[in-house]
């Protein structure tokens, strides 16, 4: 068991390294400015950690409430929303104050500019996979002995015998889980908008570039939190459904094949969840480095 945990951790770290190149984020700032921005960044990191710790506590509480494992199924979404909340608070509390002449670069910033490509692709793929998986398990499920819709899997093995197994991730879990993930993804989009629309606290190119780096890191944290929100439920649903299909007493060959594939998907999603968690916990740090060709602070084209 400990060996399995170790393998998952190592693979998660490898995935996190592949998702984001640690050397990418460097604050290239004029030395005269290496006080305010890094200080703001430290404050933002503090808020992000506060969101993360709150997420762990609230998710642990959520997992203990709700009937028949429903709370446990919803806890990754709760965790992700708390992390995203921390990022949003960080962005809002490090907004620059406007004093005197205000200058802004005439540039167009979109959410797409700041999305981490590999991580974003992985989360998008996981979201599509979750939708397909929930649709499949919902269609296959049937009511259990308590009459709860979709909590069991049944099949007529012969004219006189029907096999039933459960719990099955059908309608009873898929609807609340689908709603929770949709709310989480909506929160992700809104948080990304806050990150993109945050004023850059100046116009000088090195400052704009440094704030862009901070935006990238914030967007990465938001998308990584979304990754946990999506990949963890895929892991849970695929693991449960795969195990039930493979172990079904009179499973047709197609169920066995599907079950094995779902177990493989669940293993992959466990690593993806771990990779996203690693990114949240030990993501690349921003180290201020001196820029060789930085312009004069606060320089503006027009007055």
């Amino acid at each position, binding site marked *: 068991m400990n060996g399995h945990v170790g393998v998952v951790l190592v693979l998660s770290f490898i995935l996190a390294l592949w998702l984001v190149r640690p050397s990418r984020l460097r604050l290239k700032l004029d030395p005269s400015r290496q006080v305010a921005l890094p200080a703001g960044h430290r404050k933002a990191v503090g808020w992000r950690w506060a969101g993360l710790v709150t997420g762990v506590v609230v998710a642990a509480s959520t997992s203990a409430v709700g009937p028949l494992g429903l709370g446990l199924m919803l806890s990754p979404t709760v965790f992700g929303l708390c992390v995203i909340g921390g990022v949003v608070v960080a962005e809002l509390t490090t907004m620059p104050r406007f004093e005197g002449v*205000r200058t802004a670069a*005439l540039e167009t910033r979109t959410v797409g*500019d700041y999305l981490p490509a590999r991580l974003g692709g992985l989360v998008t793929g996981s979201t599509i996979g979750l939708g397909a998986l929930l649709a499949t398990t919902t269609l296959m499920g049937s009511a259990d002995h308590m009459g709860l819709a979709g909590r069991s899997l049944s099949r007529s093995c012969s004219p006189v015998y029907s096999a039933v197994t459960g719990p099955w991730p059908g309608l009873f879990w898929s609807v609340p889980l689908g709603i929770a993930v949709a709310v989480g993804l909506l929160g992700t989009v809104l948080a990304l908008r806050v990150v993109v629309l945050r004023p850059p606290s100046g116009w000088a190119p090195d400052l704009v570039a440094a704030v862009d780096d901070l935006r990238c890191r914030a967007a990465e944290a938001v998308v990584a939190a979304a990754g946990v929100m999506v990949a963890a439920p895929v892991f849970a649903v695929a693991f449960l459904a795969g195990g039930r299909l493979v172990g079904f007493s009179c499973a047709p060959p197609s169920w066995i094949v599907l079950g094995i594939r779902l177990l493989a998907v669940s293993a992959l999603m466990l690593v993806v969840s771990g990779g996203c968690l690693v990114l949240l916990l030990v993501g690349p740090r921003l180290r201020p480095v001196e820029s060789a060709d930085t312009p004069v602070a606060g320089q503006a084209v027009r007055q």
Partner: protein
Amino acid sequence: MSPALTVTPDDPTPPSEQLRRQLVDLIEGGQLVEGERLPPLRQLAGDLGLAVGTVARTYRELEAAGWSGPDVAAGPASRLLRPSRLRGSGRCG
């Protein structure tokens, strides 16, 4: 390097007019060219600490003067100086 816009709060000229004049100067000076996309209203308003309505007024006046038009592909809030749309630059490597 992107050109910049400046708003001086002490200036008796309304901020929307300050912005309009600078944008027209940038267009006439060739620093903003055909097809270039103007920043979204909320972004520019946030960057300059102005109300969204102030920037919207500037954009409306530019549009009325024939300098810009709606960016159909990007939605009603986006405007560009002529038909072709600039693509996002991908800032995170």
